[in-house]
């Protein structure tokens, strides 16, 4: 643990936000394979190491981090998911999701869906869950997913007590049909709903006793709980024989083993105690590659790492200085040496697996020390010739932050000072506009949409900690608004790209790299597929 756990923890925490998105994972190929897939090589069971004890299994609306969403992706089918390769929607419990105008959405559910306890999965089960999530006093972590829905402010007002227990925008039309009215048109809504934990249905039994349900959730997915949750030790799920949904379930059972330190988990994998790891520590990557060969996978995680620029720091208000600094970051070398290759240098502010991402959008992300030095000197440099770099010291960022700083020192002749805090006070400092130089942050989308890489980071009421403002910012906001109002997700993409170009030109953040995650697995496992949203498609894994 130690240093590593701290990191982990931080990751654990930081992730939560970042992360979450994930969800989906489960369904995906389901539609194509449907039943056949599970018949071919079924049987056996295996174990997967998870990096921490999940926060919640029920109510699922409390799940806003990766470990719980990995487990829940086995226990729930979800309304829909997004195919990581094609970016197409794959329907799960939903038979169709339509909207004429982007404002009123109709979700039709498949018939005869059941919870593990036999209760029907109907419109009521979904609406019940969503009203529970959104209701302020329930204090769920994913309640804000419903903020676009009409009536959200009544159940979760910014000030005072709620005036309603249910959102007016939700209507149960019949057992199979739900009508969702948003307060404004939002082209990305179906993508939002792909985050399963926030949108999963809630059984009546579970609603009666959430505490018991948390220990042994009642889901709808291809796997059900096999015994109660052994906190900090393990969670075991077994194939549910009555499953009628599209998701595959090759193995008979999966054991989630809970670790506090990925390095320890890796040693356990070496010893043959655990079959698969969802994270390999960077320091163990060379070993993992040597030992596992083909069974070591490294895939884009969807995370976007950047240095934010505080616009309230005068020296950084000059766009040329920002461009020079960005060009003086040797992203590739840092990725190779510090991150052991477990990242991809950024060429955009939108991660590659999302529709709309480009591999040449960022002209100031190319390492060019000479051009940087010239531009930097022409722009007059920085007062005192010293730059502060801020980061949270409990997330394992110190190594690369120092590498960036050393690069600036070597290429631009800048002196640096590193300022670090634990995550909570760090956020407070950011909030209070207290940082004196570039600050590190990362982003994991909640749902696979270009919009989710833009509005939450630079929009209004967002995590725009750097207080990016000015005409460029205004143009950015206008562009986003325009894209949101498009009727379909696809049509909005080019407009979101325009917004991204504004960011990449004005540089309120320095894009650094897209994160990667790595997994290793045992010889007896096969068909291990990784979803960029940080979920292993466990249902597809075959055991021999």
């Amino acid at each position, binding site marked *: 643990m*130690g*240093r590593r756990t701290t990191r982990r923890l931080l990751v654990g925490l930081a992730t939560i936000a970042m992360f979450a998105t994930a969800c989906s994972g489960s369904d995906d190929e389901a539609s194509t394979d449907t039943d056949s897939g599970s018949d071919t090589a079924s049987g056996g069971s295996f174990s997967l190491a998870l990096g921490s004890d999940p926060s919640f299994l029920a109510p699922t609306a409390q799940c806003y981090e990766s470990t719980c969403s990995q487990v829940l992706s086995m226990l729930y089918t979800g309304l829909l998911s997004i195919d990581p390769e094609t970016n197409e929607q794959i329907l799960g419990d939903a038979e169709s999701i339509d909207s004429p105008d982007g404002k009123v959405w109709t979700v039709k559910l498949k018939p005869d869906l059941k919870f593990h306890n036999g209760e029907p999965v109907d419109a009521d089960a979904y609406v019940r869950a969503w009203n529970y999530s959104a209701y302020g006093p329930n204090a769920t972590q994913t309640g804000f997913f419903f903020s676009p829905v009409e009536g959200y402010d009544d159940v979760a007002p910014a000030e005072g007590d709620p005036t309603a227990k249910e959102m007016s925008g939700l209507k149960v039309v019949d057992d199979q049909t739900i009508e969702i009215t948003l307060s404004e048109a939002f082209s990305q809504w179906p993508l939002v709903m792909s985050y399963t934990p926030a949108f999963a249905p809630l059984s009546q039994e579970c609603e009666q006793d959430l505490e018991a349900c948390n220990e042994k959730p009642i889901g709808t997915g291809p796997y059900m709980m096999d015994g109660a949750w052994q906190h900090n030790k393990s969670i075991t799920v077994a194939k549910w024989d009555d499953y009628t949904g599209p998701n595959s379930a090759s193995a008979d059972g999966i054991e989630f083993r809970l670790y506090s330190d990925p390095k320890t988990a890796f040693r356990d994998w070496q010893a043959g105690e655990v079959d698969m790891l969802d994270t390999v520590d960077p320091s163990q990557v*060379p070993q993992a590659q040597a030992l596992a060969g083909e069974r070591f996978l490294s895939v884009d995680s969807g995370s976007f790492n950047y240095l934010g620029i505080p616009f309230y720091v005068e020296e950084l208000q000059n766009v040329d200085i920002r461009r020079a600094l960005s060009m003086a970051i040797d992203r590739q*070398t*840092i990725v190779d*040496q510090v991150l052991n290759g477990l990242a991809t240098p950024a060429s955009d502010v939108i991660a590659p697996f999302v529709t709309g991402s480009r591999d040449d959008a960022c002209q100031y992300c190319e390492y060019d020390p000479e051009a940087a030095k010239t531009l930097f000197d022409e722009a007059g440099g920085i007062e005192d010739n010293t730059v502060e770099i801020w980061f949270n*010291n409990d997330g394992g960022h*110190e190594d690369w932050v120092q*590498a960036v700083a050393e690069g600036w020192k070597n290429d631009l002749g800048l002196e640096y000072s590193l300022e670090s805090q634990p995550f909570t006070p760090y956020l407070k400092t950011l909030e209070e506009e207290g940082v004196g130089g570039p600050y590190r942050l990362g982003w994991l989308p909640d749902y696979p949409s270009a919009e989710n890489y833009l509005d939450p980071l630079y929009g209004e009421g967002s995590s725009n900690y750097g207080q990016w403002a000015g005409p460029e910012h205004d143009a950015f906001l206008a562009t986003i608004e325009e894209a949101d109002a498009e009727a379909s997700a696809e049509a909005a993409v080019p407009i979101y790209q325009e917004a991204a170009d504004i960011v990449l030109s004005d540089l309120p953040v320095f894009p650094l790299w897209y994160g990667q995650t790595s997994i290793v697995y045992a010889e007896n496992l096969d068909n291990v597929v990784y979803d960029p949203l940080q979920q292993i498609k466990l249902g597809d894994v075959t055991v021999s």
Partner: protein
Amino acid sequence: MSELATAATAGHTERSGSLWADAWRELYRNPVFVVASVVVLIVMSWAVFPTLWTSTGTDGGTCELVDSRLGPSSEHIFGTTFQGCDMYSHVINGARPSIIIAVLVTLATTLIGVALGVIAGFYGGWLDTVLSRITDVFLGLPFLLGALVFLALLGEQNIWTVSAVLVVLSWPPITRIMRGSVIQVKALDYVEAARALGASNMSIIFRHILPNSIAPVIVLATLYLGGFVSAEATLTFLGVGLQIPEISWGITVAQGQDYAIAGYPHLLIFPCAALIITVLAFIVMGDAMRDALDPRGR
């Protein structure tokens, strides 16, 4: 507990001037102590005059990321660090925080511990009761967990905050032992005699009580020195110790450990050896001093 502390310090107290003289004679004839002292002096000189030992300056010199994790060579005799800096320079410069923390915390805890121990032991009564209960509160806090809680509160982690937290958690044992020792010396005949002759409390404390009761504290303090060098490393490993770009053994060891097993053993071996040898030297010194100050152990 207090009864135990009293018992544990029994027998240290009868001699004074000659005890120290005897102890010193014993020490400088002890080869182990001499070797340990030389090691400590060398490490101290790393801390105080790093430029005598390395030409790279106190910030560890230029670091080229492309040179990351090189093995030992003629250019970098200990190899390079994760950031591509010279490991030898890091080992030399890493002594500074460890030594500052160890010396500072030991001095502060000894001063606080001795002062409170004398007050509690000499004056007794309600003052003793209150001080003893406060001592209990801090004594009962588990060391590492306590440090975690305190450092997390401070949010800022540098040599001074780490030292402050170590002081807060380390004074109670010294106070305990000092108190027991003082209570014992207080009851001895010559203190009674001094009192009968009308000596003031202050003069009794400084002329009679302190010189005769401080030996066990000195021994413990020497052992503390090594302990704090270790503590810095452990706290850093736990993520609540020193932070980069500070150069310290704790940081270098904690970072090197990740990679040592993955094929870069020099990242761990050199800083860890420096750390271990230093701690060892302090412990050996403490041992030798205990033997010397406690003639019964000879």
